[in-house]
């Protein structure tokens, strides 16, 4: 059943993501208090609400449109850096949804890559800069490798979620060169980046939503 995904299964995946993100609201804000301005949880909850609200009012039942609308709604949440980053992730994903045909693991990986590419247009941050990029890059690499290796979507997402968690964890000892945490220099060390954490939750949510 995880050989392909469609509108309904993606809706379930995204709903799971939204719920998990909301469950982590306070935790994410606490992480942001240590290195930033303490509002990442609030921001993420707004994005989660935007996902849920867009799904609820979508009448098209078309995945391409749904993802684009989620992206636009996420960008409209006025939630600091989070809105454009998450917003462009979904808008970029939409751009790669094929007009016709089923979405298999390779197509799914391409959709994710397209989202990440659009997200990364917002920032010059690379791996090692103590941002959500530290989660996204290894997670995407794992998903692509699994897809290339012939695994199904659930297996690929399982590998991706595992890599995402490691990526988020890796930010702990870094100095920040992007995001507000860069302002505090050495004091950022020892704290996990909030955006890296919320992205890891996103990958886990996608996986769990498909299970």
């Amino acid at each position, binding site marked *: 059943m995880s050989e392909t995904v469609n509108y309904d299964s993606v809706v379930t995946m995204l709903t799971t993501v939204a719920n998990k993100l909301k469950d982590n609201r306070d935790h994410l*804000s606490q992480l942001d*208090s240590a290195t*930033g*301005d*303490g*509002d990442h949880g*609030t*921001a993420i909850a707004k994005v989660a609400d935007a996902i849920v609200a867009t799904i609820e009012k979508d009448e098209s039942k078309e995945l391409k449109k749904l993802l684009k609308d989620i992206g*636009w709604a996420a*960008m*409209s*949440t*006025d*939630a*600091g*850096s*989070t*809105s*454009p*980053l998450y*917003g*462009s992730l979904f808008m970029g994903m939409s751009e790669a949804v094929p007009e016709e045909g089923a979405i298999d693991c390779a197509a799914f990986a391409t959709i994710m890559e397209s989202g990440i590419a659009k997200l990364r247009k*917002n*920032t*010059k941050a690379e791996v090692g800069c103590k941002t959500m990029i530290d989660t996204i890059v290894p997670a995407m690499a794992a998903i692509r490798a699994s897809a290339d290796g012939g695994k199904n979507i659930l297996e690929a997402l399982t590998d991706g979620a595992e890599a995402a968690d490691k990526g988020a964890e890796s930010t702990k000892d870094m100095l920040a060169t*992007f*995001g*507000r945490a*860069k*302002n*505090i220099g050495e*004091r950022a060390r020892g704290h996990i980046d909030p955006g890296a954490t919320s992205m890891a939750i996103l990958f886990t949510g996608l996986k769990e939503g498909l299970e």
Partner: protein
Amino acid sequence: MPMKKFINNPDDLTPELLQGYCAAHSDKVKLVSDKIVMRAKAKDESKVAILTIGGAGHEPALSGFVGDGMLDASVVGDVFAAPGAPKVIEAMRLLKRDAGILFVVLNHEGDVMSGNMALEMAKEEGINVKMILTHEDIAPGADVPIENRRGLGGCVPLFKVAGAAAEAGKSLDEVYAVAEKINNNMATLAVALTTATHPQSGDAIFDLADDEMEIGMGQHGEAGTGSSKMLTADETAEKMAKQVLPAANCVSGDKILLMINGAGATTLMEQFIVYRKAHAYAEAQGMKVVHSLVGEYLTVQEMGGFQMFAAKLDDELEALLNAPSNAPFWVTQ
């Protein structure tokens, strides 16, 4: 325990603020599409429009400077948060004109990201926009790359200069050039003494010991270059002026703009006491202070502290600063 603030539902802060502001100044500004503050009476379309964006919570900035002679519109995000690109592009569509739009963005990542996305959409739609980024905070050092220097209260005199040039009928390139002139010759340094309460979460936005101050504090409580024991007003003013003036390229013989921008709880009495010393210091260096701004321009809720801002002026910038304006929080006859 309720927050010690006059608020209703914390989620409604920004819309209620904007409604109150536009009701109080309905002769000057109006609220469009929930989050866009525009002049009540639009400027002639033959002239360049000036647009800015930024989070709420810093009143009177940014929307307090929408009005004849200054901004044409500001797009407001939620408290301390950039507005999303969809609203920004909406404002650009409203201001679309052949003369073009100067789009002023303060260097904070959320604003820059939203700004860039809106700019990309605007280009696709054939809207003529030129973006200028303010980045005059010298807390991380005056020589670090622009990306690492935040935009603080210096946007306000930049709005004035650009707005006056636009009002005078200058082209977009000319307006941009004059804005870049002050942008490249200005510097700000902030100092914090007491914290503020985030009006949505109710939390203190930072901590500072009872006998400490922090020079370089950011606008949302982002830590600065480190806390130190409190100094007197004169010591603080001199220490900061010594950094701000050279960073703004001000040297003996220059005409300068000197601004003390109260963060919130610091009284106007204190601001004038600090100004007194900064002014004396600048004049002792052979500079001539030809324009002064003392008061609350860009605040951080009820934070105790201030920003010291300086800009090197020439005759053109001086005249633009003195040109008429009628924005609610910057009126010049």
